[in-house]
């Protein structure tokens, strides 16, 4: 990585493996960039392994997962467990949001299950967009990155 960031966070933006929707990702990228963050957008249908590979390389300040196909509660839980099992990514702040279940049923149960699985926050439908900005503002400030610097010190 060669960018030098001082204020905004580097955010890894992704959806889950089964979700082909992208307008939500396009919107979030613009929103996050407007808040001064640098966004790496992985696009639709991201296999867990691909997300981990990119995350290890990018070392984001935060991971934002957006899913709207209703499978987010299943795919998301599996993804975050894999992430938390990775030594490099265990502590990276991660949030998931969108339409996470089908027909809005069992939302509360999904939220708790996703938090239990390892997400730091869960943003469900109807939550204002500012919630995401507040979440990111509360994450640890970005490290100073020098061009060509090695990965973040643990």
């Amino acid at each position, binding site marked *: 990585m060669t960018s030098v960031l001082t204020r905004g966070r580097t955010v890894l933006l992704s959806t889950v493996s*089964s979700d*082909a929707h992208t307008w939500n990702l396009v*919107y979030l990228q*613009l929103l996050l960039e407007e808040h001064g963050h640098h966004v790496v957008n992985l696009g639709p*249908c991201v296999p867990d392994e691909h997300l981990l590979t990119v995350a290890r390389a990018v070392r984001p300040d935060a991971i934002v997962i957006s899913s709207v196909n209703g499978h987010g509660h299943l795919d998301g839980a599996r993804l975050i467990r894999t992430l938390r099992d990775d030594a490099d990514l265990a502590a990276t702040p991660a949030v998931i949001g969108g339409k996470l279940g089908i027909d809005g049923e069992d939302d509360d149960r999904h939220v708790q299950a996703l938090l239990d699985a390892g997400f730091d926050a869960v943003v469900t439908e109807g939550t204002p967009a500012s919630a995401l900005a507040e979440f990111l503002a509360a994450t640890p400030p970005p490290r100073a990155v020098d061009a060509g610097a090695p990965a973040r010190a643990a």
Partner: protein
Amino acid sequence: MTAGAGVDLAAHVAAAATRGELVVQPRMGMSDPRRMAEGLRAVAAVPAATVGTITLDSYTRVSDHAAARAAVRRGAPLNGFPLVAHGAEVTARVVRDVAGTIPVQVRHGSAAPGDIFATMVRAGLATSEGGPVSYCLPYGRVPLAESVRAWARATCTLAEDGRSAGVRPHLETFGGCLLGQLCPPSLLVAVSVLEGLFFVQHGVDSVSLSYAQQTSEGQDVEALTALRRLAARLLPPRVDRHLVLYTYMGVYPQTAEGARRLLAGSVDVAVRGGAERLIVKTVAEAHRIPTVGENVEALTAAAARARQARRSVRGPSGDEVDASEVLAETTALVEAVLELSDDVGTALVRAFAAGLLDVPFCLHQDNAGATQGAIDADGRLYWADSGRLPLPGGARTRAGRITSRRLVTMLSHAARRFDGPALGGPVPAVPPGPVAAAHEGPLARIALVGTGPRGVAVLERLAARLTERPPAWPVEILALDAVEVGCGRIWRTDQPEYLLMNTPAGEVTMFSGPPDDGPPRAGAGPSLGEWWQAVDPAHGDPNGYAPRALYGRYLRQVFDTVLAGLPAPVRVRPVRTRVRSLTRSPAGAWRLESPELGGVDVDRVVLTTGHASPEPDGEHARLAAFAARRPGARYVRADSAADMALDDLPAGSVVGVLGLGLSFYDVMAALTVGRGGRFEAAGDGLRYEPSGREPLLVAGSRSGVPVPARGRNQKPPDHVYVPLLFTRSRMRTARRRGPLDFRRDVEPWLLAEMDLVHHGTALRRLYGKQAVTLFHERVTETVDPTDPRAAVVEQARRLGGPALPALDLPARARPFAGRRFGSPEAYHRVVADHVRRDLAEAEEGNVDGPVKAALDTLRDVRAVLRVAVDHGGLTAASHREFLASFVPVASALSAGPPRVRLHQVLALLDAGVLRLLGPGSVFTGDDRTGRWRGDAAQVSGAAVLLDAFVDARIPTPDVRRDPAPLTRSLLRAGVWSSFTNASAGGRLRTGGVHVTGAPYHPVRSDGAPEQDLYVLGIPTEHTRWFTQVGSGRPGRWGDFTGDADAVAEHLMEFLAQRVTPAPAQEVVA
């Protein structure tokens, strides 16, 4: 065909097209074969030309057939039909019942369709959809090159296997959809055509080219036109092809009402744009996968709407729209791609790698992601950033990068637009009985201030819309006019019959649709010409020029007809009253005050007050002041002829008339025919029989020449001129770069368009219509934007056209500029010859006469000119020059009177009742004699003393000089403000009421629009251009009807919100 082969899609569509039917098709897929078969049978049973669809599930789409099989075994429902997992035998059984009735198409979304195609063919199916780009980039992560390879292989196999199985393979591109939203049409059309070429290159010779409905009906029709033209140019003739439109593929309206309206809109686009097939959406779209019943309902509704639309299309068809912008962009894109390789697939991969194709907002790793699409104020898509796309005219800037907020707004544009009125609340059925009794007064009150043509047009459109969606609760409409309710002052019915209109009666209508089998009513009724023939068979003539009073009677008839047809809860109160003020009431409504009404509170006000009687300024003021001091020097101020004090000018007195335009002809008629004189036929022209009660008319103007006649009308009443060079889209595109310079950016194209008609008419007379078609093609191909007129002249010369003198508009408007005449007699001889030559040109007609046809173009392209100049389109400096130099010339040359008026001028000159002073005419008060003095700078010995002076110039509208108390009150309160064009550093205070775009709210002096007021017509002149249009035209809606409808539409939105009485009702959309 083998026993297993079903109906051929291409043949089915072609047969329907021959019958004039639009083929309709759902998206439908169930995992259970029995239910899938039932769905297909239901589609086949719809009484319309349909195509059955088998939509596949997500597992099959990504070739995870094992997962699909597992789900089938478990009996778990999938979101589509797992065709490979079920296998060919099951699939063949599913389609068996409908195979002889309708074609069945498999829709899937796979970037690797080999397995799907192989199974299909074994089941007797060879019709599918997709493409290497469109089934790859929008979904998932398969690299584009891989998708191209997979599609190439699968397409070849489908072509070969299908043929050996006896079914004709057919593939539909999905390239006209891509991500469904925010992609300007040129890229959609380009990818659709390229995918079609790809299919053909891999052996398929029956294709359909898709395009997905976007956010503007007009733009969509243009796109379909471009798609058809480009396909005709690029696909080999042996390839069977048709166009398929997808009903909107983006964020869908939430309400059933909104969803139905959007579907209806897509049907209209398909019919107008010439798409042969439509893939529909249902009312469930925003919420879930639709049921079979919902699909059947959508198919039935779409087919019915299509039949209706074929009979009366609203808006121009594909052949009439200006598709040049989208066609030019699309052609540039496709040609740039095809240059990259002879193999279309390879070219596509290279084009995406180079960013020559780049889908806006597509996150696929092989998409450059440098482009952005956006929606403009008219609802049309445009390139906010064109990245590296090879667009003609160079890259579009990054200036307006999209924000997240704007993205969301744009994504929901269509949903908002169609849900808008519906979400205001349900529209319950009209309750029986007298509704007013249940309420204290009306729930909503709307006032029309001024019931001339503009006011009546708004009422007509509002009535048409209210009839479609009657309100449940009382609505009162106050129809107010200071002179005559239903027709207004200019067209009042008690004016003398010799005052004529300047438009042939057949070209005038106040109904927004043609008469039909039913009674005349809002939306359907006769034109003035038709009505005139019906009420006065002896004189009624659609090509004739009706008396103004007769038009007034027609207007009142329309007004009465509209009133009679209003649904019960709507009451109109016609009141003859002059509104004196309009102010905000403390409750937030508007308070109208007038002597007859007292004070009345209204919710909405439509201000269509028409021509003012402005206070004289400058020269006018000087003349008025002179007359005020000299009782012997009479002064008749400029106004509508019926309101000018002409009757008491004594017989035999010498009357000066300033102005030789349309008002002059009215004054001339009033003082001759109006005094009992008669025009009799004599040879080719007329002879005047004086009554002896005429004054002597001494008329003059700057040019000294009566404005020329309009060419003999050869255009049918519903004539639509489709410009080739001076087009709306060209002007719209030019305006995106900032304020225009009229001389540099607008006039060359306007003149080139006139040249095109000038030379085209001459070519047609010599060589026939084909020569004109060829001429237009060559001009289109060779036109140089820096000098558009050159290509016209050059191509006409090459085709053997005659050497025509260039049309010099200023010289035609002032033919004697710079010329001197030795005596009034010498001038009379020359000007009479000039008028005779003009009549000869006019006799040739406005279609067959090269000169008059070219000048008539000025009338035909007024709407294009408005696109360029309205609402601050020109820089302030250029706007000033436009008003001072171009407008007078254009008015003189295009708004001509009927030929008979020029014949009358010649007869009056002969009879000695009329004298023309000459070029450079000046009228002054003569202090020595106390009389008026007329003189002409360019004619020796022209000076003459006058007893009276008539100002026959139409006053330039200027609200700042309108003494009407209502105007004063609105200006004082800052509700109205005079529009200042302050673009490009200049400043032009125009005197036109500042209004927004449609629906034309006045913009307050503090810059905020008043959203419950509307202003149309004359008061807005200068903010908009050429508002002095006093009627609609039959056929396709022009701005006159469109403007009225925009106001009516906005009023309907208000009523939809308002007609829910407190306490608020439940919303049951």
